[in-house]
């Protein structure tokens, strides 16, 4: 059985990559096949990579405050390319000091399946993803070995 494939990257003009670099490693450790698109990735490149790899999930990172503008049209693009991965977004999702709940609602409406703030631990992202992809039934032993 092949490992589920995941696309990660930092969207738009954003160059913050520490988060996705660590996320990439954590996902690999947890048994994902990860394609890291790196910094400043246009939304089109996410769509392309998702289509190419038949990704189960697309993880978008945005730290610098322009997530909303940068992600506009991402989900439409995925639909057009006829792929339907889970989509997560995380990081610092608004300029300034907004309440996270408002932010979460907004990105949910844009089509993201998971919206995470910067407090989230890698472990939590990984386990949420594994759960949502139904991986834990398949590989309880692996999880136990990790924890």
């Amino acid at each position, binding site marked *: 059985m092949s490992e589920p494939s995941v696309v990660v990257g*930092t969207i738009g*003009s*954003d*160059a*913050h*990559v*520490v988060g996705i*670099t*660590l996320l990439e*490693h*954590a996902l690999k450790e947890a048994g994902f096949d990860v394609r890291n698109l*790196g*910094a*400043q990735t246009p939304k089109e490149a996410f769509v392309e990579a998702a289509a190419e790899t038949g990704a189960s999930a697309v993880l978008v990172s945005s730290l*610098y*405050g*322009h997530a909303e503008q940068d992600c506009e049209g991402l989900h439409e693009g995925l639909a057009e390319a006829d792929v339907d991965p889970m989509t997560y977004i995380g990081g*610092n999702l*608004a*300029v*300034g*000091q*907004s309440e996270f709940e408002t932010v979460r609602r907004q990105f949910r409406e844009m089509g993201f399946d998971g919206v995470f703030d*910067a*407090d989230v*631990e*890698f472990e939590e992202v990984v386990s949420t993803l594994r759960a949502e992809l139904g991986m834990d039934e398949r590989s309880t032993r692996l999880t136990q070995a990790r924890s």
Partner: protein
Amino acid sequence: MVEDTRLTDAELEQLDQTVWESAPVESASFEEAVAFHEGLPEHKRFADVLESADRVLTQPRAGVPRLDDQIDLLQTLTDEGDADLLPTTIDSYTRDNAYEKAQAGLEQSRETGENELNGFPAVNHGVDGCRRLIEAVDAPVQVRHGTPDARLLAAVTLAGGFQSFEGGPITYNLPYTSKYELAETIEYWQYVDRLSGAYTERGVPINREPFGPLTGTLVPPSVAIAICIIEGLLAATQGVRSVTLGYGQVGNLVQDVAAIRAMEQLGTEYLPEEVTVTTVFHQWMGGFPRDEARANGVIALGAATAAVVEPDKIITKSPQEARGVPTAAANAAGLRTTGQVLQMLSEQSVDLEGVDREQDLIERSVRSLLDAVFDAGDGDVARGTVEAFEQGLLDVPFPPSEAADGDVLPARDDDGRVRLLKFGNLAVDSEVKQIHDARLETRATTENRRPSFRMVADDVSAISDGRLVGRPGDD
């Protein structure tokens, strides 16, 4: 092939034209710009104020889209934060040279009254806008940005009365973008430096400041210092005479003090005599605790470090760092917390044991990195830089850019000092490597686990999780 030679006047003039051609705003004459600078009162002359200060000066980061708001913001920072030097932080679109997007964001901001950009779009405000800003505030102002191709930004802001310009071909490439070759950014910054040199020759010294913290995350001191010195050398070639070398706090007091000392020492040694070298210490540039009370602790520790080693200035953070762009009030609060600690501690002499040994280690590594660069370029520092990064002889951790290998992996030793777990191809000698290895071995023993990526990840999050070293089983 890029070379470390001074642009001729003709070349500068021609470049000037190209740069302004692409501008969405009107150009300004150089003569008129010099006249504007000459008209500025002494306390707004950046290099003078910085170089003649008898204590550590404080400077925040701050930028909002609209001009009036930026003026208010900077006034708040001097009035309520006692900031000695002011910043104007540029928005991300401008850094990307996406001036139309910046314009849209600016207009949207004007309409909605919200800040729709994460900084001040100086190019769109134009020379006049910049001059109004400089006239309105009461301290020297620096352009702080992160723009790989900052030619137009420099042309506009220097004509607009700014007398200090942060960044450089390496430090504003590797951490800030994935799109540029080093050879390209070196060329762009030769223009910026030559332009600064041109003002300098007319009696308007433009201060230039390499961005020492790089990716902000566990950058080994020797790497930061070597890179800043290279940018200082490149700037000096183009006629820059005021260079501020930068370094970002790693959080270990002894290592930070040693690093600033080493930077001062090597800076004066490597840069030409006619350059006045100053130093800037950045409060912790990595992930901050989300909690403001804890963030204040990190800020105060940075201030305490600066008080001990006395760099020429300190760049402050706000307690809201982890959340987003801070309010003016929070930014001023960070300045005051810093000011209180700085003042109280700098009135006493604090001498730490063990600084010399760490400083030796840093200096030795910097020298071998710089030797490798000079060798790789056959004595030409510009070519050497390109070569050295290509071969991984110079490298930084966590680069978004492909211009650096990103094969070095840092981790803290048992005392919290930043060491290298993986050196990639970094040009440091084997004795230095053995020292790093030994230190990390000790830590591995303490923690009963192998040095690994997991250790690095734990260290990256440690300060935001309330500690310095990312120990296992700690959540």
